[in-house]
């Protein structure tokens, strides 16, 4: 167990390390560089000044050397300043991370709470009317463009009905819990709808597969009630593959959060990444992207551990291959 644990940790660390270089290199390929930004802000800078500035900041050095410098500083705790927010990067990242975790957590729990029972209900009578109805809804959720859904929600609840805010986070004068909660309702709803379809489909497929197995037939032959068979004999087995896929979907959920946050102007990680890429805030974008990568890697690591915890049959060797 410890060996497997250690192996997966090392592997994730390697991926994270590689990604830090890839993202760093990509940032260098974005239009413009910090000196270009200075030039556009100050017309008095001559082309000689630009060359000197590039030398001063080391922008003329090879990419590997620049990366090594950055990495050294980053590991020493200096992640730099955000150009757009004029604050240290970490000071901006903290609150955004909190907001995103609220959004992701709430919609993840809601999506599972709806999707898993729906999937089980559909699996109990495959190809029945109930199954078709649930499937239709699930496919609808998977197929709806997430940003369009968000626009529709804004249209209905903010424009037509006027009962919920169209975006933002909290009003200035009254910042109580319920006031904040009102701003979270639509983003959470749109993210939940985007992910519940997938969860339902996974649960359904896995439950159908499980209900075909021999031990279920035995349970039926013993005369157990269908409810007891599903809950006691099938559920745990059926959950095993679902747990893995659901946790691997964390990256997908994060992508959804980016769209949702951008449209609802919700100040989370996704919007932060989008705004900093669009606003040439290279430092901020780099660190925020790395953090997002770290989060999703941690998610898939968790999935692996959950997997081996739920299923005692799996030896760690098998998982590795």
């Amino acid at each position, binding site marked *: 167990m410890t060996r497997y644990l250690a192996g997966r940790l090392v592997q994730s660390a390697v991926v994270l390390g*590689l990604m830090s270089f890839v993202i760093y290199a990509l940032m260098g390929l974005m239009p413009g560089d910090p000196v270009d930004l200075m030039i556009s802000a100050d017309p008095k800078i001559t082309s000689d000044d630009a060359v000197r500035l590039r030398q001063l900041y080391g922008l003329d050095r090879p990419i590997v050397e620049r990366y090594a410098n950055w990495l050294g500083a980053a590991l020493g705790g200096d992640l730099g300043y955000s150009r757009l927010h004029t604050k240290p990067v970490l000071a901006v990242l903290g609150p955004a991370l909190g907001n995103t975790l609220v959004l992701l957590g709430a919609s993840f729990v809601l999506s599972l709470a709806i999707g898993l029972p729906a999937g089980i209900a559909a699996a109990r009578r495959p190809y029945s009317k109930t199954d078709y109805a649930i499937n239709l809804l699930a496919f609808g959720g998977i197929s709806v463009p997430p940003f369009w859904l968000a626009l529709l929600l804004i249209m209905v609840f903010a424009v037509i009905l006027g009962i919920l805010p169209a975006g933002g986070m909290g009003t200035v004068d009254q910042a109580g819990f319920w006031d904040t909660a009102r701003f979270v309702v639509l983003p959470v709803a749109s993210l939940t709808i985007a992910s519940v379809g997938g969860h339902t489909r996974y649960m359904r497929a896995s439950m159908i597969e499980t209900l075909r197995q021999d031990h279920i037939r035995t349970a039926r032959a013993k005369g157990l009630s269908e409810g007891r068979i599903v809950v006691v004999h099938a559920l745990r087995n059926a959950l095993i593959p679902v747990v893995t896929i659901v946790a691997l979907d964390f990256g997908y959920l994060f992508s959804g959060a980016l769209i949702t946050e951008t449209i609802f102007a919700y100040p989370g990680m996704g919007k932060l990444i989008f705004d900093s890429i669009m606003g040439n805030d290279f430092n901020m974008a780099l660190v925020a992207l790395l953090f997002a990568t770290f989060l*999703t890697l941690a998610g898939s690591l968790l999935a692996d551990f959950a997997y081996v915890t739920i299923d005692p049959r799996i030896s760690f060797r098998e998982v590795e291959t």
Partner: protein
Amino acid sequence: MRGQGMFSLTLGRFFRHRLALGSAGVVLALALAAIAAPVVEAALGTGAETVDLFNRFAAPSAAHPLGTDDLGRDVLVRLLYGGRVSLFVGITAALAAAVIGTIIGLASGYYGGRLDAILMRFTDAIIALPLLPLLIVLAALDLGKLGLPEAFVTSENVSLYRIVVIVAVVGWTTVARLVRSAALTLRERPFVLAAHAQGAGALRVMTVHILPNLASPIVVATTLSAGNVILLESVLSFLGLGIQPPIPSWGNLLTNAQELIWSAPALAFYPGILIFITVIALNFLGDGLQDALDPKSLER
């Protein structure tokens, strides 16, 4: 069931899947409508770029069946041209991703061992990444800095090629995993061993003996990923990073509509519902194909 060929069995099962059959019809109809865009344009006597500022936000009429947008352009014609782009991107990128995924999955499953371990770790790593944020970075890159020729970088269609490449580069993972697991079991089968015994090389075994048996997982995965690709294209275009105006796509038609959501909500409705219909039809189609092509679902 006896005496019936595999193909007619598959076809029979597919036809029983009415939803999938209907979806195939819907996809076909949308594709035909998109292909016929110039015909509709000519019949209405207007162009996708014909601006008529005296006729902005016009209600649906005989001349403009779905009305006009904020510049007085015909909404129907723009939707059809947008569909051309969105469907083209969806199909091309899904096919490209399928090719990449098949090559990686085949090599991984056939050779196994260390190569398999490396390729699959790589695949896992890509699956675990937060894709959309990274795609946004890729879409924002300055192609000039990559050393691509100036004439290409500034050409009008560059956003089209860029999006196909970006989506294909990250979209191959599903196909790769499916192909790999199928190839893994196939390579132990007697007919593959027989081919080896006859002296067939690795490349020949892979392409002639194993690949044809992978057709169904590849077809299913490609159909399903075409839907995802269209969604992805629309998201990126909507955020202003995908297909660039003046080329219309369903995604960037919505960017414009978002700003007009208060004054002309219908403009925000049409492109979205078309994306929705296309994607859900592709998903139903993929699901139906999966049922039809899977020998396990024979007895139901």
